[in-house]
């Protein structure tokens, strides 16, 4: 008998194994919600799949007469705008600062401890400061995402850059490369796959900060909607929204992973070319 840790499922086996818990959970939910509904049709805590589908249809397809827009798409657009802006700023600044801190000992000495200190402050604790300073508009929400994910990304990339084999940096210099050329041609391309990896890991926290900010002060957005309908215990809206948020997060993760594989094949040797 093989050791447990040496037993590997094949490709088909992996799919079945991966799908099994999801199917079991869905089936269990279907049974429980149906039983609940049969006992008391007015009960809201465990909406049936039919009820959720009905509400999802209303949110995704029908124009809300008060605002003249379709709620799900308006919420999604507003949230993605905030998320995208925040992540774009965080990604760009962590790439620049990470490379600079990783390559230049002077900067590492000056700003390294500062970034380390900032990255241990819980971002949610800064949220009131942001609302007071920047008002309740978009700026504070975007900034929360930036401040929430950028310091960790900066530290990750600076550490990765500094850990590039010194042989490579020396070799580049013996080939005549300037500081700028080492950054541009040696460090930057090797950091890119790690940046994408870091961004993928930041998606989760970024969603947390987005939804927190929207829950507290907003009039549109996925987080706003979930916390709004919470007042009416509208689980038949909350659950589809949560599923939609999860689907978006998984989708972004997949897209980023594909971009990395396509653009940086040398960083994924197992996948072949």
């Amino acid at each position, binding site marked *: 008998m093989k050791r447990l840790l040496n037993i590997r499922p094949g490709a088909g086996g992996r799919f079945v194994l991966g799908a099994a818990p999801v199917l079991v959970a869905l089936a269990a939910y279907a049974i429980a919600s149906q039983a609940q509904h049969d006992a008391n049709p007015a009960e809201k805590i465990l909406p049936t799949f039919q009820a959720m589908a009905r509400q999802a249809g209303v949110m995704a397809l029908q124009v809300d007469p008060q605002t003249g827009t379709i709620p799900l798409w308006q919420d999604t657009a507003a949230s993605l705008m905030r998320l995208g802006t925040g992540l774009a700023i965080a990604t760009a600044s962590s790439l620049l600062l990470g490379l600079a801190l990783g390559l230049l000992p002077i900067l590492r000495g000056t700003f390294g401890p500062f970034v380390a200190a900032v990255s241990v402050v819980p971002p949610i604790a800064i949220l009131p400061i942001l609302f007071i300073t920047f008002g309740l508009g978009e700026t504070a929400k975007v900034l929360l995402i930036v401040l929430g994910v950028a310091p960790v990304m900066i530290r990750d990339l600076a550490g990765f850059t500094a850990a590039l084999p010194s042989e490579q940096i020396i*070799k580049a*210099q013996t*080939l*005549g490369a300037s500081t700028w050329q080492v950054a541009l041609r040696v460090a930057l391309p*090797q950091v890119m796959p790690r940046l994408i990896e870091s961004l993928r890991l930041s998606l989760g926290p970024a969603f947390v900060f987005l939804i927190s900010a929207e829950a507290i002060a907003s009039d549109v957005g996925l987080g706003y909607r979930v916390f709004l309908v919470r007042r009416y215990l509208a689980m038949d809206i909350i659950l589809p929204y949560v599923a939609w948020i999860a689907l978006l997060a998984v989708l972004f993760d997949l897209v980023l992973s594909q971009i990395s594989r396509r653009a940086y094949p040398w960083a994924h*040797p197992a996948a072949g070319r």
Partner: protein
Amino acid sequence: MTAPSLLYFRDVAVQYGDRIVLEQVSLAVEQGAFVSVVGPSGAGKSTFLRLILGQEAPSRGVIHLEGEPLAAEPDRHRGVVFQRYSVFPHLSALDNVVFGLDCAGAPLTGRLRGPRRAAAAEEATALLARVGLSHALDLYPAQLSGGMQQRLAIAQALIMKPRILLLDEPFGALDPGVRKDMHGLITELWREHGLTIVMVTHDLKEAFTLGTRVLAFDKPRHFDDGGRAYGSTIVYDFPLDKGAPPVDPATLATLKDRLDPDQA
């Protein structure tokens, strides 16, 4: 007056804190020499190469390259091949070799374009063919064997026509057969390009086969004081040119013993 030596060390020492690694290193290397450097692990052989590279400054003493004080940081006049990590994993073999020409010709973008890129690629392709990698131009280093990676690293360094080529145990990680092929290649390239080479090696036989001169680094006072506070220096300097006196077998045996007990 004769022309100055290509490389000149006078009373050079390297010290980290109160730990002395090298001391009293004096040496003159002539243009065209193939200098092998041997010594036990930790004797400061790599430190010696880092000094020549300019990666590190001596704590004391003077180093000259072609009669001028050595530039205090690595530059294109001193090429290097390390045992590992000498090539860029994110560039194809061809791009690895073009890299140096890119840097020289495109200070801002770091990448040549148009006809200049074509000319650089042609030059790099010829050099890659010379080291036996014509079939691997578009492969990434991870797709090359250890021996092929070292061939690539050598071609990459040679395209800059360095005044001196430094090799730090370049064949140390290779299989014996591959290593033998590499010995042939480096000897041919040394002759064809009129190179001056300083090569650190663990392998005494390799040192004597390839070199026109062998330097042995060790602690001179190792035997009487237990090697506490003293650094290594050049304890033997064997010229191997034609007409040089034969190496004393007894000295060679001592050296073999010091280098690696289980190799003897």
